Structure formats: structure tokens, C-alpha cells
């Protein structure tokens, strides 16, 4: 097991290294001088030169790359050009919105999808199954930001149960923020829940066709007991992988959904960074997002191997 974790950790480190090289290279590709790019066309040469020094653009390429990576490793992401505060501080504050949102959505989609998928599998081929599968087809096809807009029209504008956007901040109390995140989380969770329910259904069906299920039935367990004690738990393994993969979609989705609800999260930060040409912010936030995805994949791999010893062997 230790060997497995070590080899996965090595892959993780390599992926991070390559990803950082790619991101660094892309930002370096920008035609001309990043400092001039950030300041726009009408900048004074003096200002550009000052920013160049501030950004540390004077060194050679490898020097600058090492400084960037080294800084990130010690928690120093540089200073945002537009906000004039450390990027780490900005990101920290924004994570307080994006991370709860993504986790909330993940929780919602899991809580909805697993029972629905299990139920559909139990009713395989019957009208209930058809109805659920049809509904999931719709769920997959609905763009989450459009669904978010419809939710706003119904629950914020018509019924006035929720505000149409914004985020009070965690110092204002717990539930008020949960309420502010509820509509965005539902919008984000819907397509994921639809996909997850389909995966759950086929995973359960796969397990139900196994011999040990027949044994369980033969020894006198009824269908409900078999489903809950044997099928559900064994089906969780493939489902766990998909939940891990979905994290990457949740991150991408959160970036868009935050724009619908005017939530001050990482997504808003990254778009402000783009429009204000704050490359330091863009570079660091993208690296952070990629790091999050790679880390989650790593953790899922480990969890998967813990649950299923067959996977610990090298391929």
C-alpha cells in the first residue's frame, strides 16, 4: 500500500511540475512585455519599467520560473497588481465562498443521485425506471447557468424567498450564508446529480448481476435488504471515482455560476483578473484550480485502492 501511495505521490508531483511549466509558458507566450500588456497602450515607459522590476521580470526565464514556483511553495503568490494586496490573501478570502459552494453542490448532488439511482436500478425496465432515466437526460442537457437564471426568476423575483445574488460574508452568521449559497448550489448540483444517478444505476445493476447477490437472496434476504446491504455498498466504488472526476466540473461550473449570482468567489476573481489584465492573479488562481483537481484525483485514487485491494497492484 505504501508503495502504491508513493508511486501516486510521485505522479502527483510530476503532474504539478508539468502543469506549472505549461501555465508559466502560456503566460510567457503573451506577445511583448507582460508589464506593458498589463498597463495597456498608453502607459509611460517609466511606469512600465517600474512594474517590470516589481513583477521581477528582469531575471532570466528559469530564474523567474523558480521564483514563481518557490514563492507559491512558501505561500507567497505575489502581489495583485489591481488590488495591491498579496494574491494569497485575495485567494484565501475568495476560497471562503467557492469551496463551500462546491462542497455544498457535491453534497446535494450525492444526496439526490444515490437514492434515485438505486431506486431506478431496483425498478429496472419498469415505467419508474424509464421516467427517472428520461429525467436524467434532461438534467444532463440543461446548462447550469440557465437553470440558475430560472431559479432566480422563480424563487428570488417571483416568490421573493431568496435574494437574487450576493454573499453576506461568514462574519454575518452561518445560516444566512448557507441561504445565499442554496440556489447556486442547487443550480450547480442538478447536472451533476443527473450524471451521478445514471452512474449509480448502472453500478447497482452491475453488482446485482453478480453471484453473491443470488447467494444473498437464496439465504433469505428480501430485495430491500439485498439492495441496501450488498448492492449499495459495492456500487459505491465506481460511484466514488465519478464523484472525484466531477470535482473538476464543479470547479468549472462554480466559476460560471458565481457570475450568475454575483458571488465574490474565485470565479469572479479570475474574470476580474482577465478584464483588468492582472496576470499575476490569473496565473496563480489557474495554478491553484489545477492543483485542486490533481490533488482530488490523487485522493480518489488512494481511497479507491483502500476500498479495493486489487487496484493496489501495479498495472
Amino acid at each position, binding site marked *: 500500500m505504501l508503495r502504491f501511495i508513493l508511486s501516486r505521490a510521485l*505522479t502527483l508531483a510530476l*503532474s504539478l511540475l508539468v502543469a506549472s511549466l*505549461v501555465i508559466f509558458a502560456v503566460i510567457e507566450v503573451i506577445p511583448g512585455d507582460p508589464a506593458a500588456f498589463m498597463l495597456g497602450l498608453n502607459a509611460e515607459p517609466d511606469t512600465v519599467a517600474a512594474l517590470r522590476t516589481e513583477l521581477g521580470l528582469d531575471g532570466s526565464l528559469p530564474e523567474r520560473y523558480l521564483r514563481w514556483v518557490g514563492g507559491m511553495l512558501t505561500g507567497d503568490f505575489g502581489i495583485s497588481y489591481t488590488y495591491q494586496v498579496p494574491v494569497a490573501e485575495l485567494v484565501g478570502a475568495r476560497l471562503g465562498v467557492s469551496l463551500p459552494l462546491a462542497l455544498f453542490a457535491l453534497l446535494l448532488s450525492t444526496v439526490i443521485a444515490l437514492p434515485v439511482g438505486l431506486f431506478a436500478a431496483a425498478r429496472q425496465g419498469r415505467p419508474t425506471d424509464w421516467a427517472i432515466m428520461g429525467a436524467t437526460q434532461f438534467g*444532463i442537457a440543461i446548462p447550469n447557468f440557465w437553470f440558475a*437564471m*430560472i431559479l432566480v426568476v422563480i424563487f428570488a423575483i417571483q416568490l421573493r424567498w431568496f435574494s437574487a445574488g450576493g454573499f453576506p460574508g461568514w462574519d454575518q452568521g452561518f445560516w444566512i450564508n448557507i441561504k445565499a449559497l442554496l440556489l447556486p448550489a442547487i443550480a450547480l448540483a442538478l447536472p451533476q446529480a443527473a450524471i451521478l444517478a445514471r452512474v449509480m444505476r448502472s453500478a447497482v445493476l452491475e453488482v446485482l448481476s453478480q453471484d453473491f447477490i443470488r447467494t444473498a437472496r437464496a439465504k433469505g434476504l428480501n430485495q430491500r435488504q439485498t439492495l441496501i446491504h450488498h448492492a449499495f455498498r459495492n456500487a459505491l466504488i465506481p460511484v466514488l471515482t465519478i464523484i472525484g472526476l466531477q470535482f473538476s466540473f464543479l*470547479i468549472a461550473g462554480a466559476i*460560471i455560476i458565481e457570475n450568475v449570482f454575483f458571488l465574490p468567489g474565485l470565479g469572479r476573481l479570475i474574470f476580474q*483578473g482577465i478584464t483588468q489584465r492582472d496576470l499575476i492573479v*490569473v496565473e496563480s488562481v489557474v495554478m491553484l484550480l489545477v492543483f485542486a483537481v490533481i490533488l482530488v484525483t490523487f485522493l480518489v485514487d488512494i481511497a479507491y485502492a483502500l476500498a479495493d485491494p486489487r487496484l493496489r497492484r501495479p498495472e
Partner: protein
Amino acid sequence: MKWPVALIIGLGLTVVFVLAALLSFVWTPHEVEALNIAAKLQKPGSAHLLGTDHFGRDILSMLMVGARTSIAVAVVAVGIGMGLGVPLGLLAAARHGSWLDDLVMRGNDLVFAFPSLVIAILITAVFGPSALNAIIAIGIFNMPVFARVTRGGALSVWTLDYILAARVAGKSRLRISLEHILPNIANLLIVQGTIQFSLGILAEAGLSYVGLGAQPPLPSWGRMLADSQTMISFAPHLAIFPGLAIIATVLGLNLIGDGLRDLLDPRIRRER
């Protein structure tokens, strides 16, 4: 052979949108770029079947032209993904277990770590937003998907006896890949292609919605939704119709994918 219901419904939906997109080249109910402030924000009615937007432009006409953008972006992006991903997958399978195989698969994992939106953000940060950059971003995102599907399918074909016969007959790995492997995994690729096509439509809409995709005056479903957002409380039809167009197209393509899978490979159960 009996066609699955999903395939028929899916084809029906998709044909409607493709025809609407093609028709928009020669005819739309109203001029798309014609501004008519006097007729702004009309509800759906006889003059404008689906109503008008804040500039008095006809929604139906904009949807028809927007279908063009969506379909074009998705088709080219899937083409890029297939064009790069399939050869890589064939190569990895032909050299299974070698460092080349490893390199391709690890490269795949790496690209997977960049969500398509993040790729688009990176590209936009450098080159600025445009439909072309949306295509590149979605295309890059598609590449590892096709490489993985191709490799998986090809590996199972490589174990078959007639491949061994071909090798004994002296055919090179390249010729075997092209003449025997590729035709045998074409089914897989077509099914995956339709699914990626629908994901491409969704991705294009998302990118355009946040302003990273098609730029004005090029009509796009995603941007119509973005424009409608400030007016949604008094003119919800501006948001509803583009959304329904996206849903119907994506649903149609997904149903085609599911139906084709059933039709082409009866052995596997309907599942996803």
C-alpha cells in the same frame, strides 16, 4: 433492424436544429442585425414568433443564426479533438506498455486536470476572447477523451487472432492500425463523437455566457442568455428560448449517442 426510440427522437431534434442553422444562411424571418427600437422587448406574437430583444431584434432569427455558431464551434472542436486524439490513442495502443504509451496516457491525465473553462481562461488571458479561442479550448479538452477511448478500443482489437495473422503476414503496426484497428473501433468513435459534440455545445454556451466565446456581432445562444440576464424580471422570454434551444440540441445529440450505442452494439446494456 429496429431503430431505438431514443435514436429517432434524437435524430429528429438534431435535424431540426441543423436545418434551422442551414436555412439561416439564406432566410431568416427577420433581418438579424436589424435594430428596431420601436418594437423592442415584444412578447411572443404573430409579428415576432418568439418576441424581440431590447434592440427590437427578432429572437427566432437570432436563435437560427446562433445555431450556426454553436454547431460550427462544436463540430470544429470535436474535429480537433478527434484529429489529434485518435492518432495518439492508436499509437499508444500499437506500442502498448512502452514509454510512448506511458507518455500519451500521462499527458492525457495532465490535460484532464485543466477543466475546459480553465483552458479557455488561459487562452483568453493571452489572446483575448473570440469564437476561435473557444474552439481551441474545447478542442484541447476533447483530445484526451478521444485518445483514451481509441486506446481502450484498440487494445482489445489488438488481442484478436486476425491481428496476429496480419502481423505474421508481415504488416507493419502502422498499416494494421489504419487498416484493421481503426475500422473496428469506428463505432466507438462515432458514439463518443456525438457525446462530445453535445458537451461542446454546452461548453460553447457557457464560454459565450461569461464572455470568453463568440463576440458581438456574431450571435450566440450563450451570449443571448448573458444579455437577457439584466432584463429577466420583466422579459423572461429572452432567457427561456435560448435555454430551450440549448437543451433541445444537447438532448437530441445525447439521445443519438445512446441510441447509436444500442444499435451498433447490442451486447452492452443501456447505461452511461
